[in-house]
């Protein structure tokens, strides 16, 4: 069994995995970082979104060994010293979550979206969310949360 090493939320980690182990299982089972969720088996739902080397990736569609040497960020690493990241705060302020299951992937996708766009509007946000399902909120407040969070990230 190969050993895989990477940085996760700023910490160097190393563990034995099977070749076929998906990154999401590595995070959840080997590292105990259960904030990244599994909601489907066809890569559509987005509950597993994390950042690998600064970009949003679906952790269910990547093997752990493919993340060798990578810099991985999960939802658990977003807040700093107990203070919520502006995007997390925006979701809370705008009621952008209900059951919370899609939320980690949604927030990580949102941060990535905000990183890639100078300015976001409703249409762009909705299009960019095509890889993230939510069954609870109807997306209305998620859109508001992302627009507010992106603004806050830019220090507005």
């Amino acid at each position: 069994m190969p050993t895989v090493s990477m940085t996760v939320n700023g910490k160097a980690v190393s563990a034995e995995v099977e070749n076929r182990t998906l990154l999401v299982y590595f995070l959840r089972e080997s590292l105990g970082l259960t904030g990244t969720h599994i909601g489907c088996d066809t890569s559509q739902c987005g509950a597993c979104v994390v950042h690998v080397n600064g970009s949003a990736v679906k952790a269910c569609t990547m093997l752990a060994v493919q993340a060798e040497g990578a810099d991985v960020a999960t939802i658990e690493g977003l807040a700093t010293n107990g203070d919520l990241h502006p995007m997390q705060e925006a979701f809370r302020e705008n009621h952008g979550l209900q059951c919370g299951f899609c939320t980690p992937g949604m927030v990580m996708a949102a941060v990535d979206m905000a990183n890639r766009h100078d300015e976001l509007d409703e249409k762009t946000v909705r299009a960019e969310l095509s890889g993230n399902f939510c069954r609870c909120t109807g997306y209305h407040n998620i859109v508001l949360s992302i627009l507010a969070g992106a603004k806050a990230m830019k220090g507005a």
Partner: protein
Amino acid sequence: MTETGIGASVRRKEDKRFLTGLGNYIDDINVDGQTYAYFARSPHARAKINGIDKETALSMPGVVAVLTGPDWVADGLGLLVCGWMIHSKDGSEMNQPVRTPLATQSVQFVGEPVAAVIAETLEQARDAAEALAIDYEPLPSVTDLRTAVGPDAPQIHECAPGNLCYEWEIGDKAATDAAFEAADRVVSIDLVNNRLVPNPMEPRAALARFDPATDEITLHTTSQAPHVVRLVMAAFLNIAPEHKLRVISPDVGGGFGVKIATYPEEAVCTWACRKIGRPIKWTADRSQAFLGDSHGRDHVSHAELALDKDSIFLGMRVKTLANLGGYISAFGSAVPTYMYATLLAGQYRTPAIYAEVDGVFTNTSPVDAYRGAGRPEASYLIERLVEVAAREIGIDPAELRRKNFISPDAFPHETAVGVSYDSGNYEGSLSMVLDMADRAGFEKRREEAKGRGKLRGFGISAYIEACGVAPSKIAGALGAGVGLYESAEIRFNATGSVTVFTGCHSHGQGLETTYAQIVSDLLGVPLENIDVVFGDTGRVQMGMGTYGSRSLAVGGSALVKAADKIIDKCRKIAAHVLEAAEEDLEYEGGKFTVAGTDRGITVPELAFAAYVPHNYPLEELEPGLDEMAYYDPINYTFPAGTHVCEVEVDPDTGEVEIANFVAVDDFGRVINPMIVAGQVHGGIVQGLGQAMLEECRYDAESGQLVSGSFMDYAMPRADDAPSFEVALQETLCPHNPLGVKGCGEAGAIAAPAAIINAITDAIGVRHLDMPATPEKVWAAIRGAGAQGTQAAE
């Protein structure tokens, strides 16, 4: 209203853990020594099982046990029963096929659990399950509702001739027939309420552990009603007595009705963990969710409306075939009967209604409650029928509704299908929503769109629902096997903080916040000093769980009753401490004051006095401040409202864009407007999913589930939906202490008709069945395929 009390849009207390990845969902939980269960499921829609050879599977690496239906029966365990008895027209009881959690002699749907393989790792369990030699003898199957009641259909269950579970009726047939005789006009419609897969984002899961020291089994399960699961496992499944069974529903990622029933997988894990002496963990993947979760809706109906020359409704007749699936699920019998047909009056005065519902077995997953549970089916049918009638007559659809509404001063109103609506202002909702949606300007917008080659349409959906399930006596008389009260305990600590224990369950509804708001408001305790606990039968008293929009109407009422008991006790303590007569004390916002003075004492101070009873009326009053209440509702509640939808259709592609969607809802008193709006948004998009995207489909020939993943089942995405304008009206519920009606299901109930009414208006067709996909809309524009004229048998 205070900043944190009733009526305030308080930001949610539970959000912190969800936003930081610290939620406690069952698949997140691992225990020492746990094994993994994988279920071998039937690949056939219908088959005999001639035998199962465990030998190969048992010899594979890591396999701890292989368990089958015969093993379950041999251990003396029970049956998965239906919790609601329905009687047919002739008075006979419904036909109930026997079901064990693992199939014994036959299987009735693709995906039915047949065996459980338990191994050290999930992969080992899965590999062994695939190696399990199950001798199936495939039989002819039927998955389509209409085919199942036809003359050539295979007979699925011996106990159910013609594949009929029941032939049920409600209403006055003679009066309805007379109304139709006297009618000046009869409008009829045939429609389908399409089968849906609810798909909460968290798949079902279970983790079961046996403690040999205490003989106690602890089951973590994704349930909306853990106490009911415990009751079912003790009383019907015979797995363990209630006092030796602890059921915990921690964080659950959405329910929508799917997570109410007690399922085979959790029953097997609970049984097996003691049998093998190891903890067992099971998590469904999404494919298994499609196969194993209960599905929703699936009706075929023929409906007729009788009107007089002034377009007043004289009577309504409905005949519905309801697909129950391969077995009757826990509440599957009641959803298309008592939760459906009793709402067929809608918001209208219609004096005579008669409905027949045939519950039909097919070789598909069992069908049970899904957000709205019967009320979306009723509301869709009525509002399509009314809309079609308006267009046929040539009268404004809003005007036709206005003429027939129950007027605001006519409550309580007894409908022709046996329910009594308590309060409402339907005319008010309609006017408000039409104003907000600028209906007056619609024709101009339609013209403008036409100039761009697009077709615009406007659809109205006036809905009503019965929520706050349910008065136990009424439910019992109608066939329910359980009571439907709710419980709450308010426990003060000596230092003034509070823990609230509720028998309801929050899986997205925000009860940790709204219940705290209520307690804060009534007892004057700061919000941050109140904790709300639910979902653990080891900590919380008996409760019936969350579904049917009952957490405030029933759960909140129990909470108020418990708070009243707290206040009563505090009054006595306060009288003693303040050396005043009880009658001379005034109470407001958590503080007792002696009338006409500035002497007072707060509830938290009284809590301390109760736990350190030195200055205390011990001769008359026990120490402590901890009160429990059970509340059995006096009646259902009847939230109602009107949703409208404006669409723009591209005739070249059939694509439908929702240009505007406005909702006006009357939920009675609203505790947290932000949370309520969120419930409406979520419900509307589920309704949109039904109307435009989602369809659970089985192959007619093979009975295979064709829409078995998110690749084939079109879940609504963010760009399928618009933003919404939602507003509230408030006519208080007269029969519960908070005056609340419930809001969780409204959007899913109202939205489908609003959307289909708008689309049919846009493209000028009489009817279009859901989902109104671009392909269907495109074909309908070109007149291909007559819609809405096939008779339902």
